């Protein structure tokens, strides 16, 4: 036994360590994904018999105006979420000063990360409340009436995204602060000796050193925008009149409330394809410099 272990340790040990994770991933992610794609070809209420309908779910989906609302809202989420990395970086640069009391400031900025996103959603629902919310107080201060953001089909998605941006910016801020801690002091010094300051310093000397961190921030932000669901559920339930739904929420709504698991699975599959395309691009870009430097 011991002789067998000794001679096969090199491959057995890593295999044993990877096995639990691989099993979990295989069942929860791979199997579930394949099953989802399979279910999307059926008409199914989640309880009764499944009836094969081929691509009918997809045909219906691409004719469904609600799908395009969700898709458009997802694009809005994605677009506005792209503000999170630069905002996080700007705040990180601001907070990364050797000033007394900066630690307290930093911890204040971390607060939204500690809150469950459901909590953030509820808090912002109150902020937006036209009768007693912070927003109405602010508007009232100037003698104006606050718009009912969450009941206005034109503003609602933007209002939800702003709420969701708060923790997302904080997350990017944490990533960039960690990255700024690892900047090479000598490189900054070399940049200063070479006469770089302000924007050129940031662009040519600091940002290249934050490349890895920026990629992580970008990926987490894109994925966060695409899978956004909880804020929509808590703040609007997709309303008013389905104007704030996103793909993930529509999928949930169709499957759980309307008992249309086949249709929900089709939405999930489309979302999956969008995510897969992004992740493939991301991994390619991320792995390329790693291969070069290896």
């Amino acid at each position, binding site marked *: 036994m011991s002789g067998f272990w000794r001679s096969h340790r090199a491959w057995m040990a890593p295999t044993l360590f990877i096995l639990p994770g691989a099993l979990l991933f295989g069942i929860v992610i791979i199997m579930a994904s394949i099953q989802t794609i399979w279910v999307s070809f059926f008409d199914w209420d989640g309880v009764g018999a499944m009836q094969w309908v081929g691509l009918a779910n997809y045909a219906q989906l691409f004719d469904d105006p609600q799908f395009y609302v969700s898709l458009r809202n997802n694009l809005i989420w994605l677009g506005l979420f792209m503000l999170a990395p630069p905002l996080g970086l700007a705040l990180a640069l601001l907070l990364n000063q050797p000033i007394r009391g900066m630690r307290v400031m930093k911890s204040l900025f971390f607060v939204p990360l500690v809150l469950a996103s459901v909590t953030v959603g509820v808090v912002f629902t109150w902020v937006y409340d036209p009768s007693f919310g912070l927003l109405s107080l602010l508007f009232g201060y100037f003698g104006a009436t606050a718009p009912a953001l969450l009941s206005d089909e034109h503003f609602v998605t933007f209002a939800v995204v702003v709420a969701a941006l708060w923790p997302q910016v904080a997350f990017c801020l944490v990533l960039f602060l960690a990255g700024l801690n690892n900047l*090479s002091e*000598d*490189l900054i*010094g*070399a*940049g*200063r*000796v*070479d*006469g*770089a*300051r302000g924007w*050129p310093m940031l662009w*040519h*000397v600091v940002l*290249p*050193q934050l*490349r890895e961190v920026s990629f992580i921030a970008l990926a987490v932000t894109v994925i966060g925008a695409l899978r956004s669901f909880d804020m929509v559920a808590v703040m609007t339930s997709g309303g008013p009149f389905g104007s704030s739904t996103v793909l993930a929420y529509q999928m949930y709504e169709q499957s759980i409330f309307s008992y249309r698991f086949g249709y929900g699975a089709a939405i999930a599959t489309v979302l999956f394809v969008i995510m897969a395309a992004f992740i493939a691009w991301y991994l390619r870009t991320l792995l390329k410099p790693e291969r070069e*430097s290896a």
Partner: protein
Amino acid sequence: MTSVEIHDVQKHYGGFHALKDINLSIEEGEFVVMVGPSGCGKSTLLKTIAGLETVTSGKMRISGRDVTRLEPGDRGIAMVFQSYALYPHMTVRENMGFGLRMAKRPKAEIDAAVTRAANILRLEEQLEKRPKQLSGGQRQRVAIGRAITRSPDVFLFDEPLSNLDAALRTQMRVELSTLHAELGATMIYVTHDQVEAMTMASRIVVLNRGRIEQVGAPLELYNNPANLFVAGFLGAPRMNFVAGKVVETSGRSARVACAGGHGVTFDELAEPATRGDTVTIGIRPEKLRIDGAGSDFKFAGQVRLTEYLGRETIVYVDAGDLVTTGSDSGTGVFTVQIGDIRPFQTAASVSIGFDAREAYLFTAEGRTISSPKPVASL
């Protein structure tokens, strides 16, 4: 013309006084090496000259301009860092041209400067590579090239060779000296390696605890250290120090007695000694003779250890009551350096000695009071 002038510079980090009363004037074309133990402030002083650190008080002038409050990029300096500090995402060409690019020089001028630097440093083949693809020595040359392209008034080097292996270090040392001769520019070089200091410097600045201990030509400092610190810092193996007491004085002469009933008379002291003063005698290992007969100061001892270094022999001798202080080995034994190879048995008895005119005498505060030694003129 004076290239760098430093007037009464002080630097505090909170409660820590890092640089104390620094005054230094460096002529154009000089190669000044700043040495000292870790934490002595040599790197801090270099960074304040570069402008990477601000001074608490005092003034700095480079080529006649007051640069005390100027940014590093505006001081007319270039710096080579110990870690090379090359921009990892830029090619060698971009690295070397970055300073000129920041100064918004025309592209043709940048290209010409980079090509010239690459020629001097034999980097023509590497121009399109990134720092990661280069060896340590090549990276160091790129860092030097980046400094050259800016054609600065003053080159600053912060321990540039300490990340290189021994062979490469010797090679780069020679290259840097050659480069200095070629460019004729002022260079200020920080190191903790006294071989680098002795071989490259036109003048050495010895720093200790934020203070300049002595400034002078390498041989001048070696032969006539101003104090006990400089005497102990320069020279390997280290000078032997023996505690003593002034027992008799007459004019500029003083007789010093040591433990074990030994004594020696110093003549022509630079300043008079007083009877009863505690003093320290210093004698370099190469000035100790193994056959001590006929010396002014002779004593007997036992061989503890012998090191054969190929062309010289180092013998550690235990002289009983007569102990040395602050030696490299951390023990009280004497270090004797012999210019050839001779066998010694461990525990063998030897007689060693030295002449008073080869030795140094330091006051209790560490000031040198023995008469100055002649220095070979180069």
